[in-house]
């Protein structure tokens, strides 16, 4: 048979469109082809790729093989008694919601975009607005099937192949290709969240609000103005809420599980880089803060609450051809305040502006060797890809390290091997497991080579 092993040479990037690299993109149509691609070894190395919503080079493999899982997107089974869904790893969260929200189920954990695959969600061990309560996506996994470099398929769960399980959850695709997974969906009564909005005039107020009342909310995060300085440093709008019960969505013409359809906007081409400058961003941020009023119990549909950015397709083009760097860090509770303050001071003092930075409290870490979240606070922001961006981000990395923080690999494009090793103390355990599974180092990515995980 011909066909399955064919690839297309393509320029690929992550969502930040930095860096852009050429790779051989394979697109298997059925699960069995993944093993054939891996074992044929026509390319020196391979990495799996989902919907490319990681920002940097996690799903890139310069001048080597990238295996797209997007056609491996089938629902395999659903058990209504337990809410356990089985599907191929290329299935997107958007499709899961489309099929299961009308039946009264939602994802247990979701990132800020629904255009991610189940495989990507496992490999990045994604967190959502409910991390302080529910932990990461990995916590809801029953098991998954992992195809390792030899072609062997391992069933991994917290009981079976336990070490491989915890190397793969958050392992950025470097243990092998996840073929399928089983995980729990959570029952919901409506497609809405009852949300409270609360302004915090500065960082102390924001952290106090999180610490004081977060436990009352399943979902919690804050938008933070990274450009505010002085007394307003860290001013934020907290957005927190809980799943709305059926009775709250009572309009006679409204199905509580079917939110109103929305019009989709899209950014059709690259914006001129000049459009987004420090003035326009500062103005936007100021407006965003001042236009928000405190409010409680507002009914917000799931799309607007969880995926505000998804309503603008290709919004990453707003940053123009040079792309941008997403920067997400986490600090432990003891140093969070100091670390965040130092970081915000550094940002508001430079000309590198950021839109809509997000601040959120994290609950405890799990056993994932490279899983990002740990107890404390996390801050995520965009930095336009102006010249000198890599050097600037490295200075941020140093600052983060000084406060005992770490950088999220799913968003990173710059981190050095030394900083990575210091931020992820269990990296050596990961490398030992990876070497055992993949002694010839056939699974690799641009990220892996950059941070010293190539094996």
């Amino acid at each position, binding site marked *: 048979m*011909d*066909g*399955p092993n*064919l*690839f*297309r040479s393509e320029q690929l990037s992550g969502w930040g469109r930095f860096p852009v690299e050429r790779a051989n993109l394979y*697109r298997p*149509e*059925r*699960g*069995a082809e993944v093993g054939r691609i891996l074992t044929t070894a026509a390319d020196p190395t391979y990495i799996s790729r989902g919907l490319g919503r990681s920002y940097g080079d996690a799903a890139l493999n310069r001048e080597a093989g990238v295996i797209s899982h*997007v056609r491996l*997107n*089938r*629902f*395999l*089974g*659903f058990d209504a008694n337990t809410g356990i869904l089985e599907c191929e790893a290329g299935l*997107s969260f*958007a*499709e899961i919601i*489309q*099929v299961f929200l*009308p039946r009264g189920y939602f994802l247990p954990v979701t990132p800020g975009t629904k255009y991610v695959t189940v495989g990507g969600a496992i490999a990045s061990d994604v967190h959502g607005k409910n991390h302080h309560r529910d932990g990461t996506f990995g916590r809801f996994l029953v098991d998954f099937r992992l195809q390792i470099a030899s072609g062997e398929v391992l069933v991994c769960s917290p009981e079976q192949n336990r070490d491989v399980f915890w190397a793969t959850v958050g392992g950025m695709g470097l243990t092998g290709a996840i073929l399928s997974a089983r995980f729990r969906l959570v029952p919901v009564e409506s497609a809405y969240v009852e949300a409270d909005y609360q302004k915090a005039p500065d960082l102390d107020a924001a952290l106090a609000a999180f610490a004081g009342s977060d436990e009352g909310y399943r979902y919690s995060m804050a938008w933070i103005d990274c450009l505010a300085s002085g007394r307003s440093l860290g001013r934020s709008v907290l957005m927190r809420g809980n799943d709305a019960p059926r009775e709250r969505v009572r309009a006679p013409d409204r199905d509580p599980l*079917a939110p109103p359809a929305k019009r989709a906007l899209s950014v059709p081409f690259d914006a001129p880089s000049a459009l987004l400058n420090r003035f326009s961003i500062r103005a936007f941020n100021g407006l965003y803060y001042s236009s928000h009023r405190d409010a409680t119990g507002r009914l917000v549909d799931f799309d607007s609450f969880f995926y505000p950015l998804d309503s603008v397709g290709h919004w990453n083009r707003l940053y123009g051809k040079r792309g941008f760097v997403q920067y997400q860090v986490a600090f432990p509770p003891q140093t969070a305040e100091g670390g965040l303050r130092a970081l915000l001071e550094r940002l508001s003092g430079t000309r590198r502006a950021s839109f809509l930075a997000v601040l959120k409290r994290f609950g405890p870490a799990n056993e994932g060797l490279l899983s990002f979240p740990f107890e404390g606070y996390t801050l995520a922001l965009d930095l336009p890809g102006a010249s000198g961006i890599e050097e600037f981000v490295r200075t941020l990395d140093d600052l983060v390290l000084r406060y005992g923080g770490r950088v999220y690999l799913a968003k990173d494009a710059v981190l050095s091997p030394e900083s990575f090793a210091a931020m992820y103390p269990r990296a050596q355990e990961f490398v030992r497991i990876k070497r055992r599974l993949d002694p010839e180092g056939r699974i690799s990515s641009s990220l892996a080579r950059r941070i010293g995980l190539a094996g």
Partner: protein
Amino acid sequence: MNVGAPPVRPGKAGGVVLVLGATSGIMRAVAHELARHGHDLVLTGRDRAETETLAADLRIRYGVRTRARQLDALAFETHAREIEDCIDDAEGQLAGAVLGIGYLGEHARAQQDSLEARRIVDTNLTACITLLTPLANHLEANGRGFLCVLSSVAGDRGRQSNYVYGAAKAGLSAYLSGLRNRLHHSGVQVTTVLPGFVDTAMTYGKEGMFLVAPPERIARGIVRAVDRRRDVVYLPGFWRGIMLVIRSIPEALFKRLRL
């Protein structure tokens, strides 16, 4: 990705549709589109596990009933029997069939190796005829239903780069034209679909592809064509114009081109 309208609830259906060659890139999308419209489906494919995976997926997504059957297009002698079983699976509710089995093959090899050439003709023409024969008779006896078959623009004119495939598809198009003529009198609609380049495993990574359409777009066109009882449709529609031009080039000139 299939992020479109919410699934149609079962029960509104217009009968069972037989999907022959369900594992093809185009036919996967066709099966989605049919299930979204509420049809129950009988799917066939030569890869049993894969066909069953597709059947389970459609069941979960759209709440329709699906069945998977293994069928090898080159095992001609089994076809009458297999089609009979598929018809039985439909429990008297067969609305029609969509057939998308095909094999592009490697033309360079087919020029040297007549067995490769034969495989191309057998898959794209002979198999279609041996499968459609019992199906056509069944529908004719019922006095209703449809047959929708994927031929190709490649059958509109032979080109040096794929004329074996083109010959088989030309034969298929001619067969369908005759079958349509015959079945019209008993109320059975035969639709010939002529896709241009479509983004499936058949074309992925191959050279010389242009104006490549996503399979979902082709699938919507196919189901629309069935609904409207069309005879011959080019998909996307602009291929009709392109092929009109290509067919109108005089042979004396055409033979000098490198197409």
